[in-house]
């Protein structure tokens, strides 16, 4: 039984990753998870300088999901390299750094600072719906996504994954723009913009008014979008959106994802990532499937 997958020449022992922003840099989950067993760690978004994030309330529950508007609070790339990357060196697990910024220059500064580190890949966050400048502004227009992908590819030493927003008319157009600009892979979906109103207080629940919807509630949307993109581009896809079990993960893989990320499920089940790893192995055994790779995009 073989669970290995590879993306842009980077090998992963299994296709199970953590979705950015749901696992910190792994430190917070060491009581629950053997990080060495994960396919990859995808870190919380990192900017060139520390970001405060949004006012609270930043999170709220919704049916089978949640809304968040954290606003990418992070310590900046210098602290990240000294502390988080040092911590992650202890594990035999590739590190994918999620990079965020307000301007193209911000992104490029982080990309350049990470060039000579042990980071395996870069995931470019052009899809966070919760910050006013940058981020999603690059991810909702084909030309803007093409331009920033091209700029980052010209500077990056590591393979580049563009993380796509579902908050667009046609996600395949964005996938094609990323591919045309030289992206090595795409990851999808980021959260779906949502809103919740407190009718007792007659106010928005989140201080930011809107937030990103994640969790099992969004899974069918995400599976559909992975399937559409897999049929539109030939670069590998990392699929995510409401994955909580191995069965969920296998849906994404069969829809065309080479790897998958577990996101909000980490919050309600801190053991979720390992359960997905184990469950995929069980599925391969039970069904007599030799490699997980033969399942990628097997549903046409």
């Amino acid at each position, binding site marked *: 039984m073989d669970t290995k997958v590879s993306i842009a020449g980077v090998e992963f022992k299994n296709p199970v990753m953590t979705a950015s922003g749901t696992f910190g840099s792994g430190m917070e989950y060491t009581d629950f998870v053997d990080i060495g067993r994960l396919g990859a760690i995808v870190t919380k978004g990192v900017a060139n300088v520390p970001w405060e994030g949004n006012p609270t309330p930043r999170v709220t529950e919704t049916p089978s999901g949640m809304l968040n508007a954290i606003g990418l609070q992070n310590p900046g790339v210098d602290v990240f390299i000294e502390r988080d990357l040092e911590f992650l060196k202890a594990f035999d697990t590739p590190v994918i750094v999620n990079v965020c910024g307000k301007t193209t220059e911000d992104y490029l500064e982080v990309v350049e600072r990470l060039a000579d580190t042990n980071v395996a890949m870069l995931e470019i966050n052009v899809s966070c719906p919760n910050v006013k400048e940058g981020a999603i502004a690059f991810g909702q227009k084909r030309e803007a996504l093409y331009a920033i992908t091209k700029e980052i590819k010209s500077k990056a030493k590591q393979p580049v994954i563009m993380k796509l927003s579902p908050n667009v008319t046609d996600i395949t157009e964005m996938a094609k723009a990323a591919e045309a600009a030289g992206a090595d892979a795409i990851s999808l979906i980021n959260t779906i913009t949502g809103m919740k109103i407190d009718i007792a207080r007659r106010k928005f629940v989140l201080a930011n008014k809107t937030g990103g919807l994640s969790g099992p509630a969004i899974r069918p949307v995400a599976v559909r979008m992975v399937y559409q993109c897999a049929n539109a581009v030939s670069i590998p896809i990392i699929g995510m959106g409401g994955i909580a079990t191995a069965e969920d993960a296998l849906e994404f893989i069969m829809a065309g994802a080479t790897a998958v990320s577990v996101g909000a499920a980490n*919050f309600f089940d*801190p053991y979720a990532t390992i359960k997905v790893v184990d469950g995929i192995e069980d599925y391969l055994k039970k069904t007599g499937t030799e490699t997980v790779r033969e399942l990628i995009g097997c549903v046409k």
Partner: protein
Amino acid sequence: MNELKFRKKETAQVVSQKEISEGIFDLRVKAEGAKACCPGQFAGIFPPSDARLLLRPISICECDKEKEEIRFVYRIAGEGTRLISVLKEGDEVEILSVLGNGFPVETAKGKKVALMGGGIGIPPMLYTARMLKEISAETVSFMGYRNADTFLLSEFESYGKVLPATEDGSVGVKGNVMDALRESGFIPDIIMACGPMPMLRAIKKYAEENNITAYISLEERMACGVGACLGCVAKTTHKDDHSHVNNTRICTEGPVFDAKEVEI
């Protein structure tokens, strides 16, 4: 304060549950986490539901290490807590414990302590009162209620002097816990408090004006409970070690903070 580090999501058994006041429930569960609970810490209780996925952060009201029981006294605040409130003896419930940092009880040795609780902030003060009695700190408990429905009040009496306050004046001092403290003439060296934000703001101001150390327990909507999601932050007067900004995680750096260190 955390003598034993324990952090696990486990299936706990409900030992008992009863409504002790309107909408306020007293839940006891058998859980391994009991062996590591300290006063002021909390646990995440998961509503028994496939649609309500996030933990409900609930303070630890009491714990019995020998019996491995944790006691929670909480108010129904929405559908999630309502689902928890219908659990009965023998039912299973998922809990994530032990979370956060509690009150630094050991720093109160030989000191005069004002314990202050308001409304649903009262429950965690009970365990705190018991531990303060164990180290023989001179403690006065100021507990504030809306009316004569003074849940848990009699239990505080076994741990020392208790001075209640009620908004309608039906029991104790008419007013809030700050009114009760001022009226008592008691001058504490340390305050430990949990309650609504206006109460905590008044305590912070009083403590700063009188050069008293005040530890206050904060709450905020949270998702993970373990410091990963950055949902439940409090504004800080200093740069936080985690993110190097003036925001710190209530779930892991709190919920109990030195009042001087947070802006509320």
